[in-house]
């Protein structure tokens, strides 16, 4: 596309409407903050701390999934709609590892009914992560190979529809395979959900759960590793090159198809890790578990500017916090927390379609 000279700035109706919406929203927000914190403080600092901790944990999971969206979007300019379902596959992988280890008896003198899961909790968690991550990575690889690769170069709508089909297929295949019931994640006893270190804030004890800390630590480690991978390794360099320009990258001797395959493997692995953490921390796994987190993670990716890896991390954390603090802060029903996430998505697209940080799209921003 030739460079088109930007038209002279003029005030359109759209801009005016945008401004009005902005002023109204900002006014409402300030009023709510005033009410919540000064005029009529209904929650103490301990409750806010609880919300913030929950938001941070949730946000770190969203961030991992969001990076998967962003990686694929950066390279193929397509939304991998089935990404949330790959997270579901990872969650199921971890679930089955825990169930299998739970059934292996390793009796000791002190406790004859000890199982492997509780005897070696660290090994068990590592095994769950390895299995969950590899199954998810494998599904990412096959997903790309079967549903996306033959459609390379087709109009944009075509791979998107194929991705939606893949998402529906995966969800319902999982339902048929494993049944529709919700399953409890059998954590090792040391990682019992809801237990953790107590921190005295504002006169009461705020619990920092073990599972939550595990989630945040692991996802931070993974994000650092990913950053190093993209910025420092040969594969990362070729990924960046392919996302700049496929033709030129191919001319430079980069195996474009291979790089795309590996990108899907990496993004699937991230989703798998997120799925296992989701299961360990929140404890429920079923065929639809990836759908809502998937959409929210996409929102997070858009928030941070799609195609932008640090943006996806920050967007994920931001979304997790807003979702958890939002209902209390805005004084609306907690049932409506999903509405906040979708509302933010619409608002970001209206006011700043390139995201908070700005997206990394060099060309063809159609």
């Amino acid at each position, binding site marked *: 596309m030739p460079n088109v000279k930007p038209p002279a700035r003029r005030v359109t109706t*759209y801009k005016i409407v945008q401004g009005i919406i902005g002023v109204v929203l900002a006014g409402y927000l300030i009023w709510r903050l005033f009410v919540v914190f000064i005029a009529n403080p209904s929650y103490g600092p301990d409750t806010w701390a609880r919300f913030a901790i929950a938001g941070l944990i949730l946000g770190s999971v969203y961030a991992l999934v969001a990076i998967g969206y962003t990686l694929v979007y950066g390279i193929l300019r397509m939304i991998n709609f089935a990404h949330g379902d790959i997270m579901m596959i990872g969650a199921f992988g971890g679930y089955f590892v825990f169930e299998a280890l739970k059934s292996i008896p390793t009796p000791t003198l002190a406790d004859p009914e000890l199982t492997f899961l509780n005897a070696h909790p660290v090994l068990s968690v590592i095994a769950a992560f390895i299995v969950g991550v590899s199954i998810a990575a494998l599904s990412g690889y096959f997903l790309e190979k079967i549903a996306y690769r033959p*459609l390379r170069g087709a109009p944009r709508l075509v791979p998107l*529809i194929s991705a*939606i*089909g893949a998402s529906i297929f995966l969800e319902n295949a999982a339902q048929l*395979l494993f049944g529709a019931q919700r399953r409890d994640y059998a954590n090792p006893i040391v990682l019992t959900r809801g237990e953790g270190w107590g921190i005295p804030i504002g006169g009461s004890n705020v619990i920092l759960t073990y599972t939550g800390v595990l989630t945040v630590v692991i996802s931070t480690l993974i994000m650092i590793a990913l950053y190093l991978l993209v910025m420092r390794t040969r594969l990362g360099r070729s990924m960046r090159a392919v996302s700049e320009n496929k033709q030129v990258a191919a001319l430079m001797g980069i195996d474009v198809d291979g790089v795309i395959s590996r990108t899907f493997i990496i993004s699937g692995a991230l989703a798998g890790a997120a799925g296992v953490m989701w299961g360990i921390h929140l404890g429920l796994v079923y065929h639809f578990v990836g759908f809502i987190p998937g959409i929210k993670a996409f929102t997070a990716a858009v928030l941070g500017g799609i195609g932008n890896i640090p943006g996806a991390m920050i967007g994920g954390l931001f979304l997790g916090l807003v979702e958890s603090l939002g209902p209390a802060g805005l004084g609306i029903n907690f049932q409506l927390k999903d*509405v906040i996430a*979708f509302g933010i998505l*619409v608002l970001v697209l209206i006011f700043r379609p390139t995201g908070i940080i700005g997206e990394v799209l060099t060309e063809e921003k159609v």
Partner: protein
Amino acid sequence: MKKQLRHAVNAGGIFGIITIFLFLIGFTGTAADLFSDLFRNKNAAPFLSLNPQMLNMLIFLGLIGLWAGAYGSRKSKSQTDDPWGAALIGGLTAGLVHGLLVSGLALLVGTLNLRGVRINVYLSELLPDAIKLFLVGKSPLQGATVHIVFLTLTGFLGGLLSRGVGRGSWRVRSGAAWNSILEKISQQSIVKQVRGSRNTRYVVYGILLLLVFLLPLRAGPYWNYTIGTVGIYVLLGLGLNIVVGLAGLLDLGYVAFFAIGAYTMALLTAPQPHHLMWSFWIALPIGVLLAALTGLLLGAPVLRMRGDYLAIVTLGFGEIIRILSKSDALTPFTGGPSGVKAIGFPTLFGKPFNSGVDFVYLIFLAVLLIIFVTNRLQNSRVGRAWEAMREDETVSRAMGINTLTQKLLAFAIGAAFAGLGGALFASRNVFTGPEDHNLMVSINVVAVVIVGGMGNIPGVIAGALMLKGLPEVLRQLEDYRVMVFGALLIVMMLWRPAGMIPSARRKMEVEKDKGVIETPDEGRGK
């Protein structure tokens, strides 16, 4: 030879995974049930100590085995000759690999089952009965042997049939003969005349219409309900067809407009929760207008975005509407999770439309109206603008089309159709609630439009019949329906991106690359 072997092993592996998957989701048992309905052999005498159910399952597996063999015996495209030996070995190898995989699974599952592990806790379809059926009532080792022998044999047979019947020299000759006969028939002047004349088309349409109008009188209440549902999906499909098929905007939250139509009808005509009790004929246009208005309001900010953002935002919007209609906060206004009951029905010239048959006719009328409107729109300046926009937005803007206005128009008209569908749906069901408006409705409609043929009215009707009507005929397959939708979306995109019955223009675009350019007969010279 080596290449052929590798291909055959791959084919066997793929089919092995497919068969295992079908077994794990319980489809082998369902297929056996289907066959026993088809052959009516439920009470037949056992054959070789196998009861009819097991035989039926083996028949199903045998069909897959034949296919695997036929696929495995295929030669590569670069190969010019097609030797018998390679084809047979290919079929045999594919069958062997297929059989090995399946029997491995049978052995594993059978042994676990014998040891008393309750597999169906984890894989919900693997009930002890299903496992027994899969092992044809024998011990795991014997069952696995049966599978490996049977699948290898059918694979070999598949290769034989494929090489002998499918690709034999007589096939080529008979194909040529058939073509020449067809050619001769189409050369006859009378055939040409009938084909070319516009009256033929009218006669065909007339007969179809007559059939469709007579059908509800003969069908029972159940089938009338199904026909009505198909009709509503035709309405929704035609509406979404304008948005997706013509204007090229992927809308995944189409159910939101459907819900707005349904809730408007419900809240205005029902005694609870507002006690308005307005007439159906007042509520209907209000519902349609409200849906169109919401389309405009949602579209105005969102339609400036890239196409794929639109998909997610509309999806989110659809979920917002559902969550809102379900939430406690709005219960006094929308009836909350329990929905709205006793929705009003229409009265025309003193005659109340409240039986199933009446509603089928009402829905037919609406469908005819929408077909007329869509047809006129499609061939108008606006329709051309939409299609131009779908193909290339930049170029169409350069041609002087105001793309934003056109997109908004498409969005609003599509939303209005959905509102109409929703209002009719709510009034027919006498009830509407949040679960009537979940994401699956949007996905069904998208599937109807895409499978049927984007941008094409007969395609949408065929899609609705196939996706909403066919599953009612094959009730046993109900559980697999949504999964098949997903798979169909992928397969359609890979195999026929223009849909089952593609519009002439789209077909031309797809076939352009092959050097075959047809003259589109649609929308020209009017």
